[in-house]
């Protein structure tokens, strides 16, 4: 089971900020992204989102383990 967090425009499109996916792990970020969109429909801009695993930015090549929290982070606009 992996926990997905969505923000800003991604959360708005999905209609939710949190999704749990039952995936066979380890799994790539790309696969998680595919599964997520199979479940929720297309999420515009997710290709450009940064990815954080357990609150740290990661490269897209990282493998996701069971119990990880994956956040898709659209380009930020704080300040």
């Amino acid at each position, binding site marked *: 089971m992996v926990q997905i967090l969505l923000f*800003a425009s991604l959360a708005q499109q999905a209609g939710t900020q949190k999704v749990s996916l039952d995936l066979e792990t380890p799994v790539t970020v790309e696969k998680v992204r595919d599964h997520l969109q199979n479940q929720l429909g297309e999420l515009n*801009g997710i290709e450009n989102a940064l990815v954080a695993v357990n609150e740290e930015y990661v490269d897209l090549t990282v493998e996701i383990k069971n119990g990880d929290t994956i956040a898709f982070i*659209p380009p*930020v*606009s*704080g*300040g």
Partner: protein
Amino acid sequence: MKLFNITKEPINNQEVIDKVIHHNAGAVSVFIGTVREMTGEKQTRYLEYEAYVPMAEKQLEKIGDEIQEKWPSAKTAITHRIGTLQISDVAVAIAVSTPHRQDAFEASRHAIERIKEIVPIWKKEHYTDGEEWVGNQKGTKKYPEGRPERIEK
């Protein structure tokens, strides 16, 4: 007393400043980001900020670490507000103290520039004629490495 925090409450600028004042500080540079009404022809009614709070606070701490490394005598505090903000409300307050003024100016500039690069906070503009999540969400900016420049992993 948290030096780096995200809050839903209005920011008290003086409280942020007080966190960095100490006996060897000779300068405090303060940057305050406020909600602007006009952006070109667009008129903002109000803003909504959202954050990935625990990660955003960690990233703010990282900015504090970067400043510490570059200006070892500096002390930094940053508070960013989220939720609904009206015109002229304070969205972010940054205070940096150093022994001498030059470093304080440079370090506070560093802090706000880095907030705009690495801290997971998003702003939604509610204009008089529509709404929009700010931050290049139309996909015109790509991150070929999967992350913006200068992000530590």
